[in-house]
């Protein structure tokens, strides 16, 4: 380690001669780098295999591979798009367009060097860490259109959605865009990821329509063991998601993980208790759904609130997301197949609003910006949520309609009955004999 440090210092020293005007933000911090490297792996692990298994278990056995395939292909496609300009359009300077979108100077990372830093971690690490967030967001939307979308249309949708929805919104909030300037607080993606993906999933469910037979035909999860395995991986991976977003290996990351964990545990128990009370029995699917609700809801708040905030946000998440799920499914009969909107979308909204409350020091938080009151911050949060809902809703709709016009969105009725695994991929998840 000392040798690497020496080597690095020599480079830094040499560089200072050749580029006398170059200003180094700070030196490489190896502890921070190690933690963000670890977090990068944890967040990728959330999508493959965490979310894949979670979603795969929730669908019927004839569609298990289609969902795994969608998550896997999205991972690959988003990675390439990320290199080809996704990263650049969020995190490089957009000049006069900076309020809305970044620039293209970092497309394909033309001059990237191992010694380039963002803050005090290598840019390569920062690039990879942020990429894992861009991967999981379109993967979350899969739950809205599961079991009925054509694979080719899904690829088009995920790619165009990443470009026209994820990139601008992420830039507005994390890339120094207009919402960042306004002072929005979204620590790890309550708005950028959960509100955004939740709205897109709801729009997908509405545009594609219900699965054949919904809601009269039974479509229970085909493998609950798989669901719980995936859920466990999501919980663990979320430590990287929220803890890693501190970009430092210190008490900030520690506090983020602490509140994340409390939020998950509280959300799980809340959902379990409501279900127990209302339906007579506590269910495994209920407790893990409460976990996802708690985690999604604490995400925007995770770097700003204290343990009390984590507890109350988890509690509210469990209650609100539970009833949101019932309303979407039972009252409106919308086939958001794996409940992405009521869990992620609604969770993201309430978490982002409550961030304004529980970030305040009087509620045990780490403090709002100087001179900003809770209600002012709440207003800023509401603007960011509203902007995201409108943008994501509108563009998701337009992209889906465009694809529908050219190649169609849904598989044929026969293919849907047969199952997407055989119809689209010519393989099956399970064999007997």
């Amino acid at each position, binding site marked *: 380690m000392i040798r690497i440090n020496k080597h690095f210092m020599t480079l830094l020293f040499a560089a200072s001669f050749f580029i006398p005007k170059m200003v180094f933000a700070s030196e490489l911090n190896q502890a921070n780098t190690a933690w963000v490297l670890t977090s990068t792996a944890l967040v990728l692990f959330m999508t493959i295999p965490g979310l894949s298994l979670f979603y795969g278990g929730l669908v019927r056995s004839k569609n298990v591979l289609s969902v795994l395939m969608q998550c896997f292909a999205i991972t690959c496609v988003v990675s390439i798009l990320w290199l080809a300009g996704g990263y650049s359009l969020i995190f490089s300077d957009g000049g006069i367009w900076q309020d809305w979108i970044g620039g293209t100077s970092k497309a394909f990372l033309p001059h990237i060097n191992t010694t380039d830093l963002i803050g005090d971690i290598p840019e390569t690490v920062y690039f990879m860490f942020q990429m894992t967030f861009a991967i999981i967001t379109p993967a979350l939307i899969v739950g809205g259109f599961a079991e009925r979308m054509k694979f080719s249309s899904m690829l088009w949708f995920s790619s165009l959605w990443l470009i026209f929805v994820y990139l601008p919104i992420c830039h507005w909030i994390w890339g120094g865009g207009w919402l960042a300037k306004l002072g929005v607080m979204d620590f790890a993606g309550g708005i950028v990821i959960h509100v955004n993906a939740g709205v897109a999933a709801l729009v997908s469910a509405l545009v594609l329509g219900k699965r054949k037979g919904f809601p009269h035909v039974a479509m229970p999860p085909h493998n609950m063991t798989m669901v719980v395995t995936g859920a466990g991986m999501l919980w663990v991976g979320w430590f990287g998601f929220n803890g890693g977003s501190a970009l430092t290996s210190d008490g900030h990351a520690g506090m983020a993980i602490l509140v994340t964990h409390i939020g998950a545990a509280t959300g799980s128990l809340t959902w379990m208790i409501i279900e127990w009370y209302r339906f007579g*029995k506590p269910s495994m699917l209920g407790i893990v759904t409460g976990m996802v609700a708690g985690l999604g809801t604490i995400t925007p708040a995770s770097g700003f609130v204290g343990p009390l905030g984590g507890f109350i946000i988890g509690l509210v998440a469990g209650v609100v997301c539970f009833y949101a799920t019932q309303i979407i499914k039972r009252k409106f009969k919308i086939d958001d197949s794996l409940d992405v909107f009521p869990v992620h979308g609604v969770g993201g909204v309430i978490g982002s609003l409550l961030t304004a409350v529980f970030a305040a020091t009087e509620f045990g938080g780490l403090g709002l910006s100087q001179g900003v009151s809770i209600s002012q911050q709440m207003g800023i949060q509401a603007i960011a949520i509203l902007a995201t809902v409108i943008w994501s809703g509108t563009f998701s709709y337009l992209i889906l309609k465009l694809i529908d016009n050219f190649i169609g969105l849904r598989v044929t009725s026969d293919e849907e009955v047969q199952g997407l695994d055989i119809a689209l991929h010519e393989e099956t998840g399970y064999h007997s004999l």
Partner: protein
Amino acid sequence: MKLITAIIKPFKMDDVREALSEIGVAGVTATEVKGFGRQKGHTELYRGAEYVVDFLPKVKLEIAVADNVVDKAVETIVKAANTGKIGDGKIFVSNLEQVIRIRTGETGEEAI
């Protein structure tokens, strides 16, 4: 020769197999099946969506026996598989025309 087909509760399979071994019945084929009778189905609840499950899991046993063993075998199965609750299952007995042991080519009761 008779073919005994017994539909029983899955967790009673080991009891039945043991009881049959005790009376010298050595060959049983078991299949996991689903079905319903008077027990009807039950409901399952997933995130508040209620499904009625009509078909319940059962185990189907197929046992070929000589004519003089059939009554004893049926009596044994009834005793071992009985819980007294609805859904214990049924036993069907049918005539069996021929039995052949593949390895040796033996036929009839010799092959059972």
